[in-house]
């Protein structure tokens, strides 16, 4: 099996206290249908839980769905914990209702692309595939 045959492993994470995870489930199944191995851990994940799962599962990507408005704390916090765990090569991406200025600020901190509501899941899939392919060239 060559490196490029490997499955892309993605943790779909739903942090925060907001009460439903329909969106995260839709994304998780779309990723599965795209051939990814998706780890889904359910609602109410703390950044510590997310990073611990990301490390143990050795995922390539953490995709976080943040609708609570807490994106400016959650994304940097998860990124920081990933880095501290030595998992700085993991792509942290996600989606939510995130103003453009915030997107720029977060991207400047090493966080990957962030998708707004109503983005087609195919865009996120294409983005992850491209990232994964370019990563292997490094």
């Amino acid at each position, binding site marked *: 099996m060559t490196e490029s045959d490997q*499955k892309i492993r993605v943790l779909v994470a739903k942090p925060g206290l907001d009460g439903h995870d329909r969106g995260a489930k839709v994304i998780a199944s779309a990723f599965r249908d795209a051939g990814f*191995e998706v*780890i*889904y851990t359910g609602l109410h994940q703390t950044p510590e*839980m997310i990073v*611990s*799962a990301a490390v*143990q599962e*050795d995922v390539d990507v953490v995709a976080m769905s943040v609708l609570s408005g807490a994106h400016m704390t959650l994304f940097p916090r998860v990124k920081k914990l990933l880095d501290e765990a030595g998992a700085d090569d993991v792509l942290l991406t996600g989606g939510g209702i995130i103003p453009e200025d915030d997107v720029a600020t977060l991207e400047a901190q090493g966080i990957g692309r962030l998708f707004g509501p109503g983005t087609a899941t195919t865009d996120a899939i294409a983005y992850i595939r491209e990232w994964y392919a370019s990563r292997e060239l490094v």
Partner: protein
Amino acid sequence: MHVSENRLSVTHTRLLDQFRGGKPLALARAISLVENQREGFQDFLHTVLATGSRTRRIGFTGPPGAGKSSLVAELARAYRQADEHVGIVAVDPTSPYSGGALLGDRIRMNELATDPGIFIRSMATRGSLGGLAATTKEVIDLMDAFGFERVLVETVGVGQTELEITAAADTVVVVLVPESGDAIQAMKAGLMEIADVFVINKADRPGADRLLREIRQAIHLRTGHALSDVPAHHGVDLSRMMKKEATEDAPAPHEGGWQIPVLKTTAQTGEGVPELLAAIVDHRTWLEESGELVRRRRLRARGRVSDVVDRELHRLAWASPEVQDRMARGLDDIQEGRGTPYSVADTILRALLKDRGPLR
């Protein structure tokens, strides 16, 4: 193939250091190395396994949604209270359509997520049948080498005959629920043969007692003592699922047989979990005292060796240019009516057995 610690690459030597230093990320990356069978994975396994095994391995199998993950979480919590380090491997199916997988067993284990004494890994079957992924046993070995006293393994649970678990675990817990039908269905699914302990989970639901009685009767029927009070003789027939039939090496199953307990649990409340823990301890004691543990370990080792030989033979065969060449010519022969699949296979096997150079 020449496995050796000396063959480890620079990267794998660094990984080994971190692995031995107890870094969870190193265990996680070693698991990926093995799961993807990347270059050098056998040298890595050979190096870390050289210290021998000490982990107690417990397998959980049963129909989808029976509560396997919930019970695993309950047991893990209990073992943590006893200060054991616990590894968990949970297998879910790969979609045959997309090759992707939705691995959701962690949902039931969230309260364990940040305990540094617990390590949970989800695996997709990636086309393997038998209830485990092709490398699950090797992943358990890695957890063993990493230092976990206890490894809990959850099979895929899609109703295949999940025999692989008997080769991976010392104790197999079969989890059923009132909804999973009657004892006949458990018998048809081959679950009577693999259970060391039966659990009727979701005992809070109607029908649990009925199923419990049926399973107890079925166990008696199967062991041929339905009409007497003689203790059931339980011989888990591990040899049947091994590729190479165990013969002279395997001592006969011990006389004082194991009586398969049938217990009720409610994973959500934890009811019945202490009894399940006790049954696992009893089974352990029986394994040790009857000599069955030694027998199972030996059979397990045999299965592992033959797995590796099969895998290497397969790899060597199809990587050989000579074989590729004979295949191509053989296909021409078949097309033109000069050969059959059997004659072509014969020339390929001859080529393989003849050119036994350095095996890599």
